[in-house]
């Protein structure tokens, strides 16, 4: 039989989603050539199936600064990857159908302005004027001009390709089976590719496995509270240009963006199918998205949906990410649980992890993202 192949790497990244790819990219820029393991192919999971929203507004306060820093990185990535990732700062509107929702948005806007994020409250008239394509049900909304969208099919992959060009090793169809620890420190990752098993000797592992993170972490005795949650997107036929913003309504349970080629992507906001890796698209959800779409954008009542798909979101109990080391396992870093916000946050996560590894300290505080917050 195959003897185990042995290679080594200064850092092994487990997971080729946007978090893993961005980390590989910024590490390579800093001169560290990581080896990235992806059990399927780059960006094949949530990172490539998401709504494409790159948004700072309407976030948990702990994530806001991160999102704002990430948007700066997105702006730079637009020209730096050598590949058009269709990033567009077209703005973001969160709409309301009730006064109570308007009050919530107003309160949020005050906090956001305090934190330095420029947002505007729009009353009904402003909404009609600025977004005439929206349905009559909305009585107003909150707008953030620097928010935007990018193409999820391209952005995570383009980060991975750029990392590879800079010298990183990208290994698709390679699953990390186990992290080897000796004397309290990581020594290797055991992995499996289509030709057999291999050992990657390394002193450092970044575990960015999205919703699959808990299973592997558990083999190290580490409990990571991430629950997989199904989320569905439907896409229309190609349409003439209708809107630039990423729009969403929790009251209707849908969000949407129009992709550059003209297709409108409509996703279901507020996932209801918790704790499943199932990626079939539930009939009831398609129905809900179709109704929400027609209510949100009346012009879609005369349009066909072409396709639907589902992806797996990675929710933590407080819906905020985990970026942390683990006591007693030196060299092991978890970066997962972005709870449905990770597309926007991927670049900043990669950047901060790189600083942490290369300089010993990240340029932004990471205390808020400790795993230990769930152990109390």
């Amino acid at each position, binding site marked *: 039989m195959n003897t185990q192949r042995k290679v080594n790497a200064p850092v092994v990244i487990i997971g080729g989603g946007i978090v893993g790819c961005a980390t590989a990219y910024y590490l390579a820029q800093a001169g560290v050539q990581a080896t990235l393991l992806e059990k399927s*192919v*780059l*960006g*094949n999971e949530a990172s*490539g199936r998401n709504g494409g929203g790159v948004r700072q507004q309407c976030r948990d306060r702990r994530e806001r600064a991160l999102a704002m820093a990430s948007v700066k990185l997105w702006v730079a990535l637009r020209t730096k990857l050598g590949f058009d990732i269709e990033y567009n700062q077209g703005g973001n509107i969160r709409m309301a159908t009730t006064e109570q929702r308007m009050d919530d948005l107003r309160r949020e806007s005050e906090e956001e302005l305090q934190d330095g994020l420029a947002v505007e409250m729009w009353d009904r008239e402003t909404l009609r004027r600025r977004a005439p394509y929206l349905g009559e049900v909305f009585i107003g909304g909150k707008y953030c001009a620097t928010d935007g969208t990018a193409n999820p*099919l*391209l952005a995570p*992959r383009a980060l*991975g*390709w750029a990392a*590879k060009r800079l010298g990183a090793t*990208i290994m*698709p169809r390679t699953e990390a089976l186990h992290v080897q620890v000796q004397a309290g420190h990581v020594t290797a990752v055991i992995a499996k590719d289509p030709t057999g098993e291999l050992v990657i000797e390394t002193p450092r592992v970044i575990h960015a496995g999205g919703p699959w993170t808990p299973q592997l972490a558990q083999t190290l005795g580490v409990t990571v509270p991430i629950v997989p949650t199904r989320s569905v997107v*439907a896409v*229309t*036929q*190609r349409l003439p240009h209708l809107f630039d913003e990423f729009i969403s309504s929790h009251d209707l349970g849908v969000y949407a963006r129009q992709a550059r*080629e003209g297709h409108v992507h409509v996703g279901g906001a507020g996932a209801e199918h918790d704790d499943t890796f*199932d990626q*079939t*698209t*539930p*009939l*009831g*959800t*398609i*129905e809900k*998205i*179709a*109704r929400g*779409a*027609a209510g949100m954008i009346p012009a*879609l*009542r*005369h*349009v*066909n*949906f*072409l*396709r*639907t*798909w589902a992806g797996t979101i990675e929710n933590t109990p407080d819906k905020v990410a985990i970026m942390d080391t683990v006591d007693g396992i030196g060299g092991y870093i978890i970066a997962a649980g972005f709870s449905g916000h990770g597309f926007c946050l991927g670049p900043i996560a990669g950047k901060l992890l790189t600083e942490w590894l290369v300089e010993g300290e990240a340029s932004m505080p990471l205390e808020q993202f400790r795993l230990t917050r769930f152990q109390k």
Partner: protein
Amino acid sequence: MTEPIEIVVVGAGPGGLSAALAAAQAGARVALVDNNRQPGGQYFRQPAREFRGAASPHQRQGADLWQRVQAAGVHWWAETTAWGAAETRVLTLAGNHAPSSIQPPAIILATGTYERTVAFPGWTLPGVMTAGAAQTLLKEQHLLPGKKILLVGTGPLQLVLAAELVRAGAHVVAVLEGAPIFQKGAAHLGSLWGQWERVVEGASSWLTLASHAVPYRTSWGIVAANGNRQVAGATIARLDAAWQPVAGSEEQIACDTICLGYGFIPFTALAQLLGAQMTWQPELGGDVPTRDANLQTSAPGVYAVGDGAGIGGAALAQVEGEIAGIAAAAQLGHHADTAAQKIQALLPRLTRERQFQKMYAALFTPGAGLDTLARDETILCRCEEITQADVRRAIALGANSAGEVKSITRGGMGDCQGRMCSHLLAHAIARETQQTLAQVGRVRPRPPLFPTPIPVLGQVQAARAEESLR
């Protein structure tokens, strides 16, 4: 509807009609779904009423079968599209005569095929069309597709179309048969011709072509369609045993229309969504569901018959339909005691038709050379205008599966839902990456299988909210 439907048959071609009839005669409550207004499928489809000339024998046979289906009390859900399905044996339907979703104890899929496109330089020029499109123009709108028509492809259906065109007054400049049938199949030809003659106007097609001196060349195929904004001619060439054009044999031929008749691809998306296991069988047209002796797929209660389970012609579709109809009804307790015996009695017919199917496949399965005609600038996915060079670029970036190339290039994401292009893309990837088609993998079908109005999707019965679509 008072009593619930027990068996839903999707597709009202020869396979579906026979299945519905057999199941209903056994006592099952059957609904027959088809997206067309008229039953009949590819084969029995009734011509428009004003079409000149008398009904052909197979049309009369179809009308007779349809009468018996009605007499047996089958519910006819015309103009209804099954746009989705789930592994829980749920079908979702769009149409005015049917519920929006249904979860019957058994489903018989008889969904037929779609035409196989071929990518060569110039194939997207106006004037290039599939044989089926030409046939529809001729039969339903009484229009000739052009004045000087070249037919390229394989199989006896080409001859039928050629004869129809000639009779309607077109100038058919040549019929090119890709297969080396005269070298390869002299032994087969007798029985093949016999079979074919039985069902189409075979012999008379020959005579028509002969009397109009239409050249018929075997082991010849198209290399390129030429012209600026419209087809003005074609480059054709002799083919080797692998259907690869032989260098130096090229000829130019003037024409304004090119009809592609390179066969069919089974439409298996519903079977896949229902959870049926698939197997790659090029001689049956590509990916087909695996089936047991009763034609049940690996998904319990889901049967597949006819061309949609492997190209085999109308007669095979009918006998398969009968078997699945009897078996599905028996599974639900209708005449379960006599079913095995009835199926046994059909086996000689099944064996005969399967032999014919094998022979047909041996003669007319295109060789690998057909998939090498595209050039860098040739479009593979028409809806999204993706060229072979785009595919090559995606591969250079590290993509080597159908799914990745689709994600990176958008190839296969257009309105045709991949029906025109996914095989072209898969072949290109396989060739570029030196993998087999199985390694390249297939792109998962995603509901809705056909572009479906948003208001229709908003009316799926909420009662089935837990049911999942793949």
